[in-house]
């Protein structure tokens, strides 16, 4: 038996300190989630659950958007279209086989992921702006498709009946809220895993310089396609519970501008370079909007989000996370 070498010990300490540094935000999040959740149960009203649901939905959407937008630098304007694919997959399942929500969500994710793969395959070989423009038009087309598809309600919309309550989870709104909470945790964990993996570093390299990345052996197109599909799939999954949340779906709500704008504004305001940025942006803006809708109109509400986004990208391009980092650097 020999004593551990001093330097080994130092390395071990350093490593455990590093692990603590990465685990700390996660632990903090878990605590925050627990507090919020018990708080919600304590308030116990439907409104509290629904407000929390909306905020969590935006956590999923902005985290998903950031996998392609923040890590790879490809701007997807069609988040509402991917979300709506999830919404309408859910509507179709509801009108045909009536699978439970938990089983519908993976289907919605697959459908939206395939859409991402298809659009990506056609446009990701070109300059990034062409992809962005194609996604802008994509929302319009998906909207047109749904408007002309009578089975899913066409432009008149469709009603979805949700049960009052569900075994074990209690009120259905509480159940929806738990489902969205789990999905948001999964999304954040996926985004974090991508960021720390070679997949994410490959995306970061091609974000900076695609040709140089290819010459370093990075399969740019494949990584972009994977990121687009993954990002789209998470948005689709976020859409699946939506019909049961609103109980009435029409194209105007499924393709709403609120979703398109918030999904881009939240990561940009929070900060796009790390997984925590979109979470901060979504929680902050989402909660503010939930509070503000009570007092001001939703249009004015959205206008504020738009103005905030333009101010942030002009003056603080690295978002809130970037601002915090800057302040920290200045102190030390």
């Amino acid at each position, binding site marked *: 038996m020999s004593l551990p070498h001093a330097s080994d010990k130092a390395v071990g300490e350093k490593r455990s300190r590093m692990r603590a540094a990465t685990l700390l935000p996660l632990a903090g999040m878990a605590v925050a989630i627990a507090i919020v959740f018990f708080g919600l149960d304590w308030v116990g009203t439907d409104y509290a659950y629904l407000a929390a649901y909306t905020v969590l939905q935006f956590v999923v959407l902005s985290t998903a958007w950031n996998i392609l937008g923040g890590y790879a630098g490809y701007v997807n304007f069609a988040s509402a279209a991917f979300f709506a694919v999830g919404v309408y997959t859910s509507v179709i399942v509801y009108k045909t086989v009536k699978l439970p929500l938990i089983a519908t969500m993976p289907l919605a994710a697959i459908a939206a992921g395939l859409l991402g793969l298809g659009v990506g395959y056609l446009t990701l070989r070109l300059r990034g702006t062409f992809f962005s423009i194609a996604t802008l038009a994509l929302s319009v087309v998906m909207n047109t498709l749904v408007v002309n598809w009578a089975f899913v309600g066409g432009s008149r919309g469709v009603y979805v009946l949700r049960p009052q309550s569900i075994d074990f989870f209690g009120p259905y709104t509480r159940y929806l809220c738990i489902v969205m909470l789990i999905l948001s945790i999964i999304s954040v964990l996926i985004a974090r895993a991508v960021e720390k993996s*070679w997949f994410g*570093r*490959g995306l*970061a*390299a091609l*974000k*900076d*310089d695609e*040709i*140089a*990345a*290819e*010459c*370093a*052996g*990075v*399969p*740019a*197109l494949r990584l972009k396609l994977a990121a687009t599909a993954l990002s789209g799939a998470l948005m689709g999954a976020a859409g699946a519970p939506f019909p049961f949340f609103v109980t009435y779906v029409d194209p105007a709500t499924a393709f709403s501008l609120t979703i398109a704008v918030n999904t881009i504004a939240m990561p940009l305001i929070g900060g796009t*370079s790390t997984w925590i940025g979109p979470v901060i942006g979504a929680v902050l803006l989402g909660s503010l909007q939930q509070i503000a809708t009570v007092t001001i109109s939703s249009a004015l509400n959205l206008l504020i989000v738009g103005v905030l986004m333009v101010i942030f990208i002009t003056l603080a391009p690295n978002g809130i996370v970037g601002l915090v980092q800057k302040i920290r650097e200045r102190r030390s």
Partner: protein
Amino acid sequence: MSTASVLSSRGVVKKFGGFTALTGIDFDLGPNERVGLIGPNGSGKSTFVNCLTGALACDAGTIDFGGTDITDMAAWRRARLGLARSFQIPRPFRGLTVRRNIEVPLAFAAGLSDQAQIEAEAEDVLARVGLAAKSRKGPRSLSQVELRKLELGRALAARPKVLIADEAMAGLSDSEVDEILVLLMQLNDSGIAIVLIEHIMRAVVRFSQRVIVLVAGAKIAEGTPMDVLSHPEVVRAYLGQ
């Protein structure tokens, strides 16, 4: 020579609209050879490099790398086979640290998967190109010569059999040119065949075992540095007009 060549091209043609940038280039590079590729501005050197490495698709001809036909192969696959390049204007990944810049080709082109090994090799590469002290810095803090070294380091980290250095010394001072030359020689000593594209004649003459001259998209001369530089057509292309 062609039987043993690691990288070769036959009849490579590249057109941009109505303009023919390369008119059918035959090229061979032997194992561990040092070849200089020279020519006036607009002679098609960089276009040729782009065709060899896959940044551009050629309109006709074939490219062979160590017995594999790579004519239609994507750039990243060529990099994985062992064909590395540095860029005329340094193109670092500005959002990544200097060490991460080196780690990207180690993980992707060289296909390493163990993180500890990647980090160790990255530090090793940085030490070889003389950037060990800058490991944790961002590329924005590097000087011009350091950026050139980072370019070479990144190419080196792909564990190449062939390195194409596209004007790795442009804009550097005499002593800096010497630094890069020494570095390239060391890389060559470790078994990497090198194609040097350069305007600085002194460097080309010192470095190259063989020199190829491109003018207006065609190869007009090939041979030892001294032979080529006294070639009448080369003299005319460089000094005439």
